[in-house]
C-alpha cells in the first residue's frame, strides 16, 4: 500500500460506519473496505463474497479477481480521489495482499433504502390522467421516463455537479427533435457551474437561469410524468437531478405555466374553456384589489349611481382608508395560506374554516373591513389557486402588493404604470435565450391554437414551432373512415 492511499483510507476510518474486513481465500489475503451504511448487504454477500469463496482457482492478481466477479460496475483503480469518492457513493474497495497500491472498485450501492417507492402527484393534481410522478431516486425517474416515451431517440446525458455532494444531473432531450442550441446552452451553463450541494432541481434552476432578479419562473417545473413527456416531445430540454422529485424543462414561456395536462384529456372545447377561465383568474387575482383601492380612493365617479349606494353603505363604518383595509385583508389571506402550507394536512382544514369563515365574518362585524372587499379578496385568493403551476401562482400573489401600493398613490394611472412595468419586464425576460412572451411577442399565429387555447387534435399536429424543433410534425392527420355518416347512409 502506498503511503498516500493508506493515509486517505485511514482518514475515512474515523467514521463509525466505515468497515475494513479481511478474508483468506486459497492462501491469499483479501481486504474489503466499504461504508456499511451505503452498500447493499444482500449484494455484498450473494453477488460478491459467495463468488470469491467458491472459487477453485488461484487468485494471484487483480485481474483474476475481476474475472471472478460477475458485476458490470467494476473497475481497477489506484487514484485516491476516485477511490474515496466511489467509497462515499456506495462502492466496495477490494485489495489483494501483495498488490496493495491498486484495487478493485465495485459499485453495490443500496438504491432502495431511504427513497419513496411512488409519488402520487398530489401537488399537481388532475382528475383525469396518469397519477405517476417522479421520485427522489434518479434511476427510477430515468426508468419511468424512458418507459413512458419508449424510444431510443430519448437521450440522457449525465453531468456531476456540486463540489461536495457530486450530485448526478441528467439532461434529457429528444435527438432529432430538440434544437441542439438549447441543449448546448444548458450543458454549457451546467458545466460552468460551481456549487457545493445541489439539494433540489429548483435550486439548480435559479443557478442556471437567464435572469436571477425576476419573480417569474423561467423554467417549467413538474412532478408529473405526462407533463415532462409532453415538454420533451415539443422540443424542450429537461433537467433531472438526483434527490429531487421535480424535473425542470426549458425554454419556457409564460403560457406554459398556465397549461394543465388535463386540458389535453378533456374534449378540446372544454379544455380551451377552462384554460380561458384560468387566464381570467390570473388577471382578476392580480388586479381586482388594486382596482378596488384605486376606485375608492380616487375615481368613485367611475361607479354608476346604483352601484355606488351598496359600496358606500358597506364601507360607512370602516375607519381605515382603502389602502390599509385592503392590505390588512390581503395579509390575512397570505398568513392563512402560509400557515396552511406549513401545517399537517389534517390541521390545515380546520384552520381554513377558522381563518376563512370566522375571521372574515368577525372582521366585517367589528367594522374593520367591508363586505364587498371581503368578497373581492377571497375571490382573488381563490382565482390565484387556479394557476396549475405552483411557482407562477406565487408570482401572481406577490405582484398584487406593488400594484395595490401604486393604486393608492396614483389611482388608475398607478395601476397602468405597474402593468406597464410588468409588461416591460416580461418583454425583457428570456428563458435559455428564447423570448418569454412567445407566441404573443414575437407573434406566432400558428402557435396560438395550441399554446393560448387548445384546439382539436386535428389542428395541433405540429410541434411547438417557436421552440425551433428539428422535425416539425408530431403526427400525420388522417380522416377517420370508421365513423358512420348518418346523413349519407339514410
Amino acid at each position: 500500500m502506498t503511503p498516500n492511499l493508506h493515509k486517505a483510507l485511514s482518514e475515512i476510518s474515523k467514521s463509525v460506519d466505515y468497515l475494513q474486513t479481511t478474508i483468506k481465500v486459497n492462501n491469499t489475503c483479501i481486504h474489503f473496505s466499504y461504508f456499511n451504511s451505503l452498500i447493499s448487504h444482500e449484494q455484498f454477500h450473494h453477488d460478491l463474497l459467495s463468488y470469491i469463496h467458491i472459487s477453485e482457482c488461484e487468485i494471484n492478481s487483480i485481474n483474476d479477481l475481476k474475472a471472478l466477479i460477475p458485476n458490470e460496475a467494476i473497475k481497477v483503480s489506484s487514484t485516491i480521489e476516485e477511490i474515496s469518492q466511489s467509497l462515499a457513493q456506495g462502492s466496495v474497495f477490494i485489495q489483494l495482499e501483495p498488490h496493495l497500491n491498486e484495487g478493485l472498485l465495485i459499485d453495490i450501492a443500496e438504491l432502495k433504502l431511504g427513497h419513496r417507492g411512488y409519488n402520487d402527484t398530489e401537488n399537481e393534481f388532475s382528475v383525469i390522467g396518469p397519477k405517476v410522478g417522479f421520485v427522489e431516486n434518479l434511476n427510477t425517474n430515468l426508468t419511468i421516463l424512458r418507459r413512458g416515451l419508449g424510444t431510443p431517440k430519448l437521450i440522457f446525458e449525465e453531468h456531476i455537479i456540486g463540489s461536495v455532494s457530486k450530485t448526478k444531473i441528467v439532461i434529457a432531450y429528444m435527438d432529432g427533435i430538440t434544437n441542439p442550441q438549447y441543449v448546448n446552452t444548458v450543458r454549457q451553463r451546467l458545466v460552468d457551474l460551481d456549487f457545493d450541494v445541489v439539494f433540489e432541481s429548483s435550486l439548480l434552476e435559479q443557478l442556471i437561469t437567464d435572469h436571477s432578479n425576476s419573480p417569474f419562473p423561467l423554467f417549467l417545473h413538474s412532478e408529473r410524468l405526462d407533463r415532462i413527456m409532453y415538454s420533451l416531445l415539443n422540443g424542450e430540454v429537461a433537467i433531472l437531478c438526483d434527490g429531487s422529485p421535480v424535473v425542470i424543462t426549458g425554454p419556457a414561456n409564460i403560457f406554459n405555466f398556465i397549461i394543465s395536462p388535463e386540458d389535453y384529456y378533456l374534449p378540446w372545447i372544454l379544455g380551451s374553456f377552462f384554460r380561458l377561465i384560468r387566464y381570467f383568474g390570473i388577471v382578476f387575482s392580480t388586479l381586482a384589489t388594486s382596482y378596488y383601492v384605486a376606485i375608492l380612493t380616487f375615481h368613485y365617479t367611475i361607479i354608476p349611481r346604483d352601484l355606488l349606494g351598496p359600496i358606500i353603505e358597506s364601507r360607512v363604518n370602516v375607519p381605515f382608508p382603502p389602502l390599509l383595509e385592503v392590505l390588512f385583508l390581503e395579509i390575512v389571506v397570505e398568513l392563512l395560506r402560509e400557515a396552511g402550507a406549513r401545517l399537517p394536512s389534517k390541521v390545515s382544514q380546520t384552520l381554513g374554516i377558522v381563518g376563512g369563515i370566522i375571521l372574515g365574518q368577525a372582521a366585517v362585524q367589528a367594522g374593520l373591513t367591508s363586505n364587498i372587499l371581503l368578497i373581492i379578496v377571497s375571490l382573488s385568493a381563490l382565482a390565484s389557486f387556479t394557476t396549475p403551476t405552483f411557482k407562477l401562482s406565487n408570482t401572481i400573489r406577490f405582484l398584487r402588493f406593488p400594484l395595490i401600493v401604486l393604486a393608492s398613490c396614483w389611482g388608475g394611472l398607478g395601476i397602468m404604470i405597474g402593468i406597464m412595468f410588468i409588461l416591460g419586464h416580461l418583454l425583457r425576460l428570456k428563458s435559455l435565450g428564447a423570448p418569454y412572451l412567445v407566441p404573443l411577442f414575437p407573434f406566432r399565429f400558428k402557435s396560438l391554437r395550441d399554446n393560448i387555447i387548445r384546439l382539436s387534435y386535428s389542428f395541433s399536429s405540429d410541434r411547438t414551432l417557436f421552440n425551433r424543433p428539428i422535425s416539425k410534425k408530431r403526427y400525420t392527420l388522417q380522416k377517420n373512415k370508421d365513423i358512420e355518416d348518418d346523413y349519407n347512409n339514410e
Partner: protein
Amino acid sequence: MQKAVKENHTISGYFVFFLISVSQTAAAIFNFQCLVAGEAGHDAWISILLMGLSLHLIVWMIYKMLGHPAKDVIDVNRSIFGTWLGNVISLLLVGYYFIMALFFLRAYIEIIHVWVFPALKTWAIAGLMILMIYYFVSGGFRVVAGVSFFFMLTIPLLFLFYIPFQQGDFHRIMPVLNHSLLDLLKGAGISSYIFFGIECLLIYFPFLKQPDKNRKWAHFALLYTTIKYVVIILVTVMYFSQGLLQHTLWPTLAMTKIIELSFIARFEFLYIFMWVLVIIPTVCIPIWCCTRIIKRVTTLKPRLSLPIVLIVLFIIALMFKERTEISALEKFANVMGLWFNFAYIPLLFLITIIFLRPKPKLS
C-alpha cells in the same frame, strides 16, 4: 456604410404595422378634431383623407430610398452631403425626434392634469413616465417593438364610438365639399401632426427583416390610421355642432363621457388610463431613434446618451405650464413635421434617385 444589424436584434417585417400605427395614435386622437374643423369645418374628414393618402407616397419614397441594401437615413445623409455635413444634419434629426417625443409626452400629461388629477405635480407624472420609458428603451429595439404590439389591446375601445354615433345628426356633415380647396388643404396641413410616426421608419428601417416583402404593412398601418381618424372625425362632426366644437378642447373625451354601462360610468377615465399603453411606445420610439442616431454619429454609447436625453426631456417637459404654451408647441411640432415629411424626405428621395443611382455591382 454601417455593418448590417445583427439578426437577433431585428424584428419581423410586419411589425412595422404596429410601430407606425401606435405612433400615429398618440394623445392627438383626443383633440385633433377642433383644429382640423377650425379650417375645414364639416368637411374636415376630406382634409384628413387627403393627408393620409398623400403620405402613402412618402412611405413609398422611404422604402424606395432605404432598401437595397437596407440602410438608415444617416447613411443617406452621409452619401449625399458628405460625412461631415451629413453627420451634422443627422444630429439635427435628434432635435426633431426629441421634439416629437416631448410633444407626445407633454400632451398626455396635460390630459391627466385636466381630466383626472388636477392637483398632481407635473414632475411626479413626468418622472414616472420617464422612468418607464428608460426601462423600455434600455431593453433595446425589440422591447420597444414588443410594447408597441400591445397597443392592440386598446383597439376594442374604438368600437365604443358607436354610442356617440347613435346620438349624432347625419345632416351636420352635409353638404359635402362646401369648403374651398384652400381650406381643405389648410385643414390637411394642420392635421399633419396626427400622422407623426412614419418618420421614425427612417431610423429603424435596417432593423426590419425582409423590408421589401413587408412593405404592404407600412401602407396598411397608414390606411388603418386614416380610416380611424376619418371615422372619429365623422362621428365628432355629427355629434357636436360646429360652434360647440370650436369651444371643446378634447372632443373625443367629451364624447366618451356619455357612455355608461351597468358596472362602469365615466368611460373617459378608462380611455385615459388605457392610453398609457399607447403613449409609452409612442414616446419610446423617437427616444430610441435619438439614441440610435447619437450612437451612429458620435461614439457615445446608448447607456450614456439615454439618461442624458431623458433628463433633458424631463427638464423641458417641466417648463411647459400653461395651455397656451402647449398649444404653441403643438403648432411648432406641426409645422416642423409638415416640412420634414413633405420637403426633407422628398428632397432626399429625389437626390438619391437622380444622382446616386445604384452603380453596377462591384465584386
